[in-house]
């Protein structure tokens, strides 16, 4: 079970790092803020932050381990915040409410991340025994779940809108499908976060609780596949999506 979980999460980590680095590399010269936010989100949180935080417990030297944990936690907070700001910037660019919600989400991530790091500095790997650290971890997972739920909602909404556009000859079926996959990935992540948050809230250890490990592993492997289809879709897949609409890509 542990090996399976490690393989699934490892694949997701590698895919996230690859996709994130690719987006950041392309966003920098073009100054594409949406790509930069999305790329940094994938690169910083699942690509680097989680492996650093998890790997820190396996390091012999406590100083290096602590530095790795704090660096990992910082990257997780920054990366997850970028998910919020990506949603606000891309899906609700003129909504003050959305920008405010993204800022509140980022503050909650920062506060809970600080408490988790503070507990880790004091007690090391046993920090989860502190009620404040457990509450902060549940808060972080819950807020992250909200970020992914927002992602899923916007993805499904835009997929529906794109399907309507197709009826007018506007809209690209490949982009419409990309919104759908994005929404499905967000929905699955909500499920994984909810299972982990419930495990933590019930006093369990989400890294040992079978339900939490299974949910995280399965979502990790499925979302790795979705990352491929969203960000580096094989030509054959795009052709399959376009099978009924030759020339639709040039419609808009």
């Amino acid at each position, binding site marked *: 079970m542990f090996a399976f979980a490690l393989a699934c999460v490892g694949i997701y980590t590698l895919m996230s790092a690859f996709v994130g680095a690719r987006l950041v590399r392309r966003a920098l010269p073009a100054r594409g803020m949406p790509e930069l936010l999305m790329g940094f989100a994938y690169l910083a949180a699942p690509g680097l932050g989680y492996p650093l935080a998890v790997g820190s417990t396996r390091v012999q030297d406590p100083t290096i381990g602590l530095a790795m944990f704090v660096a990992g936690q910082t990257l997780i907070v920054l990366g997850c915040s970028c998910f919020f700001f990506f949603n606000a910037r891309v899906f609700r*660019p003129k909504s003050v409410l959305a920008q405010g919600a993204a800022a509140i989400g980022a503050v909650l991530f920062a506060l809970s991340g600080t408490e988790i790091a503070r507990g880790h500095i004091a007690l090391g790997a046993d920090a989860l025994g502190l009620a404040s650290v457990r509450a902060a971890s549940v808060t972080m997972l819950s807020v992250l779940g909200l970020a992914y739920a927002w992602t899923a909602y916007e993805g499904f909404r835009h997929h529906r809108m794109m399907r309507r556009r197709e009826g007018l000859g506007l809209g690209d079926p490949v982009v419409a499908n990309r919104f759908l996959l994005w929404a499905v990935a967000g929905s699955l992540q909500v499920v994984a976060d909810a299972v982990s948050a419930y495990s933590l809230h019930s006093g369990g250890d989400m890294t040992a609780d079978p339900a939490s490990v299974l949910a995280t592993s399965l979502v990790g492997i499925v979302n790795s596949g979705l990352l491929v289809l969203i960000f580096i879709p094989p030509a054959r897949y795009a052709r399959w999506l376009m099978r009924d609409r030759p020339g639709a890509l040039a419609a808009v």
Partner: protein
Amino acid sequence: MAGSGAFEAICGALAAAEGMDRWTARGTLQLSLMDAGLDASTVTAAQLAIVVERLLPRQLQSHGGVNVDALCLRLRDTLASLPEAAGDESAESVFGRIAR
């Protein structure tokens, strides 16, 4: 919420038509955009041109005293005269380029 430049321009032209006011024009256009799956805040002139051609006439039929054909022709002229908007940052555009 404010609409895109093209949306606001068409709203202005539509509101100036006989039997229309600002809110009726806005509401009528919003309904057509909903049918088309478009968002007022990001809709482009090219997309609006298709809406004006394909969907708006049906919405305008319900407004008595409006010469639908003449009005739609005027709206298309308004759209054609708009300068091209700089840098499309709509969600569709972002999701269209993230995989390139």
